[in-house]
């Protein structure tokens, strides 16, 4: 369970991100018309992620080759690719909402996996589930700390100060 959620799915997602440069420019321009502010792509990625967070989806992907194939296709194409495509187009607020929910999801799932008295996936043991819960809490905490540090002391090149009122010298 830990390997599938924290290793396999993220690697598949990375594969989708790496696909962006090979998408023809014309196709990207057409898709961009349907992706104002990156919202459509991020919503698509979120819905696909929600599906692959369901325990029965994870279960089925380990026992049914067709579902496994669906996972190998949809995680890169419906999560990684739209994420990479839409992220640069998303504004600060859309990114903020996405990241807040992303961090909150790590905390919620981590907490859920730790306290659930039953196995949520039939193919994995309770120990694995609780270990995954611990890892997710740590990852959520790490992400939050990184975000806090970035916001407190980081550089934000995309938010140009020149176009704003009263910029300090």
């Amino acid at each position: 369970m830990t390997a599938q959620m924290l290793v396999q799915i993220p690697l598949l997602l990375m594969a989708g991100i790496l696909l962006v440069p090979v998408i023809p420019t014309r196709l990207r321009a057409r898709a961009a018309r349907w992706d104002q502010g990156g919202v459509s792509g991020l919503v698509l990625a979120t819905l696909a992620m929600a599906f692959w967070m369901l325990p029965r989806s994870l279960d089925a992907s380990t026992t049914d080759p067709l579902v496994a194939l669906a996972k190998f296709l949809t995680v890169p194409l419906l999560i990684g690719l739209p994420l990479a495509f839409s992220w640069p187009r998303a504004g600060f607020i859309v990114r903020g909402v996405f990241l807040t929910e992303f961090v909150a999801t790590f905390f919620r799932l981590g907490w859920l996996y730790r306290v659930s008295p039953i196995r949520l996936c039939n193919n994995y043991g309770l120990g694995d589930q609780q270990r995954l819960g611990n890892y997710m809490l740590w990852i959520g905490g790490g992400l939050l700390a990184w975000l806090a540090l970035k916001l407190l002391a980081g550089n934000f090149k995309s938010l140009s100060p020149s176009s704003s009122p009263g910029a300090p010298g």
Partner: protein
Amino acid sequence: MSILYPQNEMLESRERMVLNLYLVTSLVLFLVMMVLGLLMRLAQGAWMDMSPTLFYQVMTAHGAGMVGTAALASSAVMWFFLRKYVPLKTSIFLANYVLFMIGAVLLLVAIFIGKFAGAWTFLYPLPVQSLGVWSVGSAVLFMVGFLIIGVGFLLFYLDAMRGVIRVYGNLGRGLGLQWLFSGTVDPDHPKTVVASTMVIIVNSLGILGGAVVIVMSLINAYDPEIALNALFAKNLIYFFGHVFINITIYMAVIGVYELLPRYTGRRWGMSRPFLWAWAASTLMVMIVYPHHLLMDFAMPRWMAVTGQVISYTSGLPVFTVTAYGALTNIHRSRMRWRIPAMLLILSMFGWAAGIVPAIIDATISVNHVMHNTLWVPGHFHFYLLLGVLPMQFAFMYHLIGRDTDRSVSRSDRLGFWMYLSGGLAFVFMFLAGGHASVPRRWATHFPGWQVYDQVASLSAALVIVALSLFTVRICLGLMHTPSSAEPAPAGD
């Protein structure tokens, strides 16, 4: 240029419309919630019949409504002044309002139709263990309402965060952290930006904590087998809840920094102690919440001790620099004693006096006997009724004023003194009740306790009359008087 109504505070018609929505809604909600509060005190004083079930519904609506409305009105103060220094989107400000209203409707439906009466703190597992008084669906609706309101405020803070980062580079620079130890403090660095940055940081984290515990409570509501650790859930709820209500004063105090110097005619400069105070409070406001859990014997001892120590110091830095700054600003200043100035001074008194009962209650040995008494409502009503709300009313009165105003009208003066005397009598009845060990959150009171409730009812009625005067005056003013968008010909 007008001193009271500077040009850079002009509102476009759309901005004014959205701001007016915030202000009118806040005033009406405050009035409705105060009437609910009065009904509770009347019922406790045996001057009115109210079933305990209805009492707890009213208590839940009063708590949730007052916390939400205080935050709504304070966010209007923050938005109005912060937009002078950083770019803010009116559409996001409007989105916060719309989401707030949707959430408020869900809360009211959950309470008055679904009969949810688990208090605004929705402490696990009470929402799902109602002994048949309300359904799980009602509890879910209530929590979803909170979730939606939280999303609205998160959008508002993200927009403010974007604005601060765009102008100052990052939140640390907005907070002035670069000047804590060395360097020359920029005397023109706006206090509004410092306060807003603190609010953005603290309340975004608070909302994140709330979003986690609410969704986990929702999972538990539909799958009771997933039992949560009640103490951990309570920690998260109070982290979110305490931060959310505490931050209303830190948003509203921006009005003091912006308006008081205009009425005194004196500059209120930036200083290193001011920056230190806000930096310290940024941290302390987040870790002070354990003072709500001092009676939970299972809490780690170090957390309880931290709760006590930080409670003594949490509000102190910002309060000290604000109160000291305000007093030196006023001293021999030829203050223009108009109604906004009077309300600002009242708010400083309410803030100062309102934190004293809290500090007393945060002492562990005192807390064990006082925390479940009316002493605690005495504290937060003092702090909110005579601290936060007067800051918000001062801002509203300022908006409808003109440079040419020379005196305070008789009705405003009457309203002010009624509000002050009624408010003081009302909160002292809570504190006296607490001193006499009257428990809080009890629908029915013994005859010996009812004198406090009866005096409080009369006082609350006085406050409601005063607020009605304020509401009529401010609403008419917002409709008929050119606000800061069209400054009247300068009279100074």
